[in-house]
């Protein structure tokens, strides 16, 4: 019996190994892909300056840009804003790690920003149309309707600041923060973005290896009426494999003392949601649902955000929730 068991184990192992090893197809070179213009633009109702990032599909590790394009956004009431070329850092940042090594990329994406004279021209509830025309005649169009305004309920005065400002408050360690807010008309979903700093020091001695300097977690509230989230318990659904299990368990029910958290809760429009959730499965990689039409692909979406900075400590400072 023991011999049969050993034989079956060996045969099964051999079959599995052979199957897996024998399923790879030889790599072959193919012609370069199509050169397409790609648009990245999220109108942010919490900021004055808006930007449109233009880049191209890859040609090896070079991300080409699009200089000399005409970029205009027209609001539903007829206001038209012509974007101006700007230095790259106004639109995007690239970690220096991408500038060297075998996986380095050469980034030449082009940045266009709205002029300061336009002021706070992106407002909740309005519709906007993007029109891009490149120097060689390519045209792209996109439309977005910015979700309506909303309010965070139950926050203390220091925490509840108007859109565009940052609220500040203190949260006791190892406690959760239950947030709820009013409905933002037209929102397809709400995103909760959290940047946590100070975890390395706060969790020192717990034996959790390689804690990053900054931990970023996302949470999603699906649909216009899904207006509650518990921080941090409900965040990190999409980062389960990104960070270590011990780290995720350590902050599952609350933050450790000494952590600093920057929270952004935003109502997203259709295009932003479609871009984030992606399209159908494809073995070659993620597929993004484009929200522009014409001679290229990309995203033209919108966001209505509220921001909150939370210090995690036992006493002192304004609490996050009113009456606590």
């Amino acid at each position, binding site marked *: 019996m023991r011999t049969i068991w050993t034989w*079956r184990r060996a045969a099964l192992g051999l079959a599995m190994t052979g199957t897996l090893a*024998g399923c790879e197809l030889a790599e072959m070179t193919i012609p370069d892909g199509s050169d397409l213009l790609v648009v990245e633009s999220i109108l942010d109702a919490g900021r004055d300056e808006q930007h449109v990032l233009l880049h191209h599909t890859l040609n090896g590790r070079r991300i080409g840009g699009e200089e000399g394009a005409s970029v205009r956004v027209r609001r539903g009431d007829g206001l038209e804003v012509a974007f101006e070329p700007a230095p790259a850092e106004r639109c995007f940042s690239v970690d220096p790690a991408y500038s060297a090594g075998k996986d380095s990329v050469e980034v030449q994406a082009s940045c266009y920003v709205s002029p300061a004279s336009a002021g706070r021209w992106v407002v909740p509830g309005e519709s906007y149309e993007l029109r891009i025309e490149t120097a060689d005649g390519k045209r792209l169009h996109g439309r977005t309707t910015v979700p309506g305004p909303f309010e965070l309920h139950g926050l203390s005065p220091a925490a509840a600041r108007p859109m565009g400002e940052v609220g500040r408050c203190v949260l006791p360690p190892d406690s959760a923060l239950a947030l709820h807010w009013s409905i933002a008309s037209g929102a397809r979903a709400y*995103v909760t*973005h959290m940047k946590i700093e100070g975890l390395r020091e706060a969790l020192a001695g717990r034996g959790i290896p390689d804690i*990053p300097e900054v931990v970023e977690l996302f949470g999603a509230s699906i649909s216009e009426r899904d207006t509650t989230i518990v921080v941090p*318990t409900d965040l990190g659904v999409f980062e389960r494999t990104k960070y270590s299990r011990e780290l995720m368990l350590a902050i599952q029910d609350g933050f450790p003392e000494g952590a600093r958290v920057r929270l952004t809760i935003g109502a997203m429009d259709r295009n932003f949601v479609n871009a984030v959730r992606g399209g159908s499965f494809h*073995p070659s990689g993620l597929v993004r649902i484009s929200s522009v039409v014409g001679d290229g692909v990309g995203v033209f979406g919108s966001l209505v955000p509220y921001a909150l900075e939370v210090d995690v400590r036992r006493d002192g400072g304004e609490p996050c929730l009113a009456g606590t």
Partner: protein
Amino acid sequence: MLALFLASLLVPSPAPAQGSRKAEVRGRVTDDAGAPLAEARLVLRRAADDVVVGSTLSAADGAFRLSDVAPGRYRLGVQRIGYETRSVEIELAPGDVRVLDLQLVSAPIAVEGFVVDARNTPRERARFESEAGVTARVVTAGELKALPGLAEADVLRAVEVLPGVVSTSDFSSAFNVRGGSTDQNLILLDGFPIFNPFHLGGLFSVFNSDALARAELLSGGFGAEYGGRVSSVLQVETRDYGGEEFGGEVGMSLLASRVSLHGSLPAGAGMLRGGWFLSARRSYFDKLLPPDVGLPYHLVDLQGGLTLPMPGGGQLRLTAYTGDDVLDMSKRDPERSDGGEGDNDEGEVLRVKWGWGNDVVGIRWDQPLGEWLSTVRLGYSRYAEHFGLVDFAGQTYESRLEQLSGRGDLGREFSSGLSLQLGAELSRLRSLNLAEGGGSTFWEQEDRGTLGGAYAQLRWRPTEAWIVEPGVRLDAWAASDTTFLRLAPRLAVKRFLGAKHEAAIKLAAGRYTQFLHSLRDETLPLSNEVWVVAGRHLPAVTSDQAQLGVERFWGESWSASAEAYLRRFRGLVTYNDADDLNTPSDDYLQGEGRSYGLDLQVRKHTGRWTGWTTISLLKAERRFPDPLAVGWEDVPPEITYPPGFDRRVDIDLVLRYAPRPHTEIGLRWAFGSGLPYTRPVAQHVNWEYDPSTGRHRLPIPTGSEEPEAPPMFVVLGPRNGARYPAYHRLDLSLRRTFQRRWGTVTPYLQVLNVYNRKNPLFYFYDYSESPATRSGISMFPVLPTIGVEVTF
């Protein structure tokens, strides 16, 4: 009930038997132990010219009846798998009622596996001789065993080699029939539906081959008695062990071990003996390989059946099946690191607990009621799936479909030229799909409804050369928020040709409806069905179909058929990837489809080698609205594309060869033209929007010391606008049976993909390198497997 009423108007009153000058032959078929033999084929031929004047199958109690026979001399032949053919000569005078007791002798075991199955496929031939419209293909238990399979015989793999059937992947035993989707196949286990009959996402079917008698695929033209699916009906039938002595089969393969036991039940007073069987199967991936190295996955099947003769020639039959797939990583060390290249720095695993499975239980009661034969069925079918993370509560996925059904059928043969079948069924269905995580419900769909159906199917043979089958079916589906009512008329006509009626031309047309959809992504090689029911936001599927074919038998040895078909589908659904999360009305896109094609088959039934070859030609198309085109004048509002199973040419060659007694060689060669896929045309980096800074950025994956390439998106070309290279594969099997005093031992060797053809499963395009590259994953490489079967 309307159908029943209409049918009653169509049926003429039968003439009193006493007034007829015609004769009748009736009786019973039994085995050498006196037990009744169901489904023995009886063929009545005129002695003078050998012309077939009637044929039938024996009922569950072995009874048969051939009425309305002209006086004269005849030869009555009776056949059944596993028994010697018998023929008796009879002479019928006007008004004679001849009662015959036909006892068949078991075929010698020494020739089992060859001669037994060389007796033709009785049901297929019987259907040819007695039915007009249906396209039925039968795979017997013997053929099933001889067909090379993955580790062990698999009935759904065997179905793939039948005409009109397309399989898109070696990794999945799901199949498409004549341009229909996989969810449009009604799969019945002893007459009861089984919703997701696959293990490991489709790699194996749930059916234990030891317990099966045959599989019969109705690929088109099926009659009004079948409802609920529009594309095909696959009837998987377990063996009838009535009257058999205690025995069993044991099988071991690289996949699993299985055991099947059967025996008879004590006979009641004046009753025949009933039978029972019980079979079990379990895989041992998880037992052979330690949890931290191997796959902590196992499958379990448990199946049983009971046959009880009833007073008055009836029979009660119980069928039960339960099966589970379990991927349980809860015992895995979450901090384990293999140190391999694929591990991240922490070497951690995300521990999941994932299970899914089917349950079926049903009881069928066949009972003669005077001139009528009644069949009553009560059954419960369930498919359930649950996925969760061991370490993080609240993140779950659950999917479930349940059906509780009752059905009654009544059949009567008024004469050899006229029979009627009536029936009605009532089912209660419930579907649930729930995905939760992070305090949000990503998907919640729950519905239930009641399905009522009634049908009438008439078979009329005005002359020996013609069969006409009009039928009508009425289905009503009452969901929680709406009601559907669908009338589905069906008509089939067959004209026999030639002096011996061994050839025929047939035409069938009809409407088919279904109220269930699966949202499974058919581009995935392994995945489970995700069932939803029709409702206010989900249409019912309606398919109009027509087919024209010719069939020809050459004695008992050869047959050939050619059949052209045209199908149109309405009410197809697919996920709307760009739906508005605020409203359920746009969760799914509603579309249409059509297909047409030609199926050819040549089959050899007897001799040292048997088998068949099929050529299937298909063109299929799907059309769905493009939700992203709304509001843009220069974007086409609809997308038309060939579905992933649009295999234009499919050729199968299946051969069984017995070079000597006890030895059997099986061969299968399959060729298929390339399947469509969506080719990426470019790739671009994934700029992430950071709401805290208001700028885009290229993120670095956390935990990597060396920066990896930035995350990327692919830009796709036209949907399914490219095609993979042609598929072809040769499989071989060798079986040798050793006779022992207590039974038999049959070791077998199977080799899949003998010449190691690299059939692509996926291509991976990488435009981030210069020059751009394409790599990929192939389907099965050359794959030898061994196993052994023991019977006692």
